[in-house]
């Protein structure tokens, strides 16, 4: 019996290094190296995404509120954020490096610029979509302008705003994969580091995709939680 176990062990070991040298998909290798190689970059990547989306949201939301009352601002803001959106992220990272150096700051500046257009557009569209009669009734009952904005228009705009934030988040997960060009870390560096080895690419790429779906799901959950009337209407 001991013969067989010895033989089996030799076989397994042989197969493992076979897998790696044959550039296959190797679950053993993955499990062995996961903790060392993938966990830190994963959280770094997550950090980049969350901070960038938050910063982008704060700016875009503020701009949206201001532009809601001053329509003439919408064109220029969309124009500027549109240009920022068009510049490929790789180029953006590299263009910022001479000015803001390598690291987290550069990556966040570039990534949050991408979210501005989407979120701004959705904030403005959402605020405009509040039914005119609800606004008229609110004013007529004696709400001040700012009360009408925060108690009627913003809540009714939430579904649209959330949609924009969700799109921005999933897009940012993908773009943050290129943040390593600014030395900001993230899962992209891992992919870039070993493009040929299937296991590496699948794990690193797969983690990105999983992150995108999980964040989207969480935001969707938050959206459902904060807009109970939408569910009621459908029922």
């Amino acid at each position, binding site marked *: 019996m001991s013969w067989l176990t010895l033989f089996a062990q030799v076989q397994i070991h042989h197969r493992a290094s076979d897998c790696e040298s044959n550039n296959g998909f190797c679950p053993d290798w993955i499990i062995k190296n996961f903790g060392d190689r993938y966990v830190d970059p994963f959280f770094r990547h997550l950090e980049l995404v969350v901070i960038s989306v938050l910063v982008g949201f704060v700016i875009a939301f503020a701009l949206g509120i201001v532009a809601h009352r001053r329509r003439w601002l919408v064109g220029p803001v969309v124009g500027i954020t549109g240009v920022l959106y068009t510049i*490929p992220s790789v180029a*953006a990272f590299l263009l910022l490096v001479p*000015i803001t150096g390598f690291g987290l700051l550069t990556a966040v500046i570039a990534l949050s610029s991408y979210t501005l257009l989407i979120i701004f557009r959705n904030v403005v569209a959402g605020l405009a979509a509040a039914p005119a009669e609800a606004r008229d009734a609110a004013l007529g009952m004696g709400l001040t302008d700012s009360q009408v904005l925060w108690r009627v228009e913003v809540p009714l705009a939430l579904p649209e705003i959330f949609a924009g934030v969700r799109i921005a988040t*999933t897009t940012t997960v993908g773009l943050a994969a290129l943040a390593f060009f600014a030395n900001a870390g993230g899962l992209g560096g891992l992919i870039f580091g070993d*493009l040929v080895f299937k296991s590496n690419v*699948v794990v690193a790429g797969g983690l*990105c995709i999983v992150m*995108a779906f999980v964040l989207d799901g969480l935001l969707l959950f938050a959206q459902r939680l904060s807009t109970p009337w939408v569910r009621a209407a459908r029922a």
Partner: protein
Amino acid sequence: MGPGGTRMIVAAFDFGDAIDFILNGRESVTGGVRIGGSELLPQLWRHLELTGAAVGIACAVALPLALWLGHLRKGQFAVASIANVGRAVPSLALIGFAVAYIGLGFPNALLALTLLAIPPIFVNAYVGIAQVEPDIVDAARGQGMTEPGIVRRVELPLAVPLVFGGIRTSVVNVIATATIAPLIGVVTLGDAIVSPQVYGDAGQLGAAICVALLAIAAEVTLALIQMLVTPKGLKLSSTRRRGFPFMSMRRVEVS
């Protein structure tokens, strides 16, 4: 002069050097090869070739299907899924999968980029057709138009802004991803970006400037073409829509 000031001056030098790289040639860092200047032209051409082919094939594949499904107003769940997946897969991962599983070369790069280009085109075209008001479609049907006729003469013209928006989004996305196509063996403008050890920092920065300008130029060109292609009646009505005149010119991202 504080550190901010010094930083600005250094940055100015960096950009100056990068622009010099773009306009004039120089010798590569590793020595022996001409880079920059006119050497960038073949890379630019490659970049455009790859982008044009990928978007072209994506249109040929996705548009008919999207128009047909959109007209029938079927398969909404599939469309939403495609949109989500398309957005969630990072371009670098796509390139990575391609390199790892199918290898290097122009056809492989083209495959990866075409896959990248399909979702925005497909989703936008679908929504563009499907959101045409059913009353209008009904009226057309009642007048005796055939189904393909309705698509061609009623729904498609009304869907032009969204369809075009999808194409514009794809073009910009593919230009961006083609920048890292050198990883899969196709030498585009991004070569200097992925190989700074050969091109130097100025080369890397110069290539970044080129790619950015290329993307902006493509966007502006397509916007102008869209304005020319949009039926006049639609242009007038969309400028009146809730005071968003820019909306008809902007890419519309569909959630």
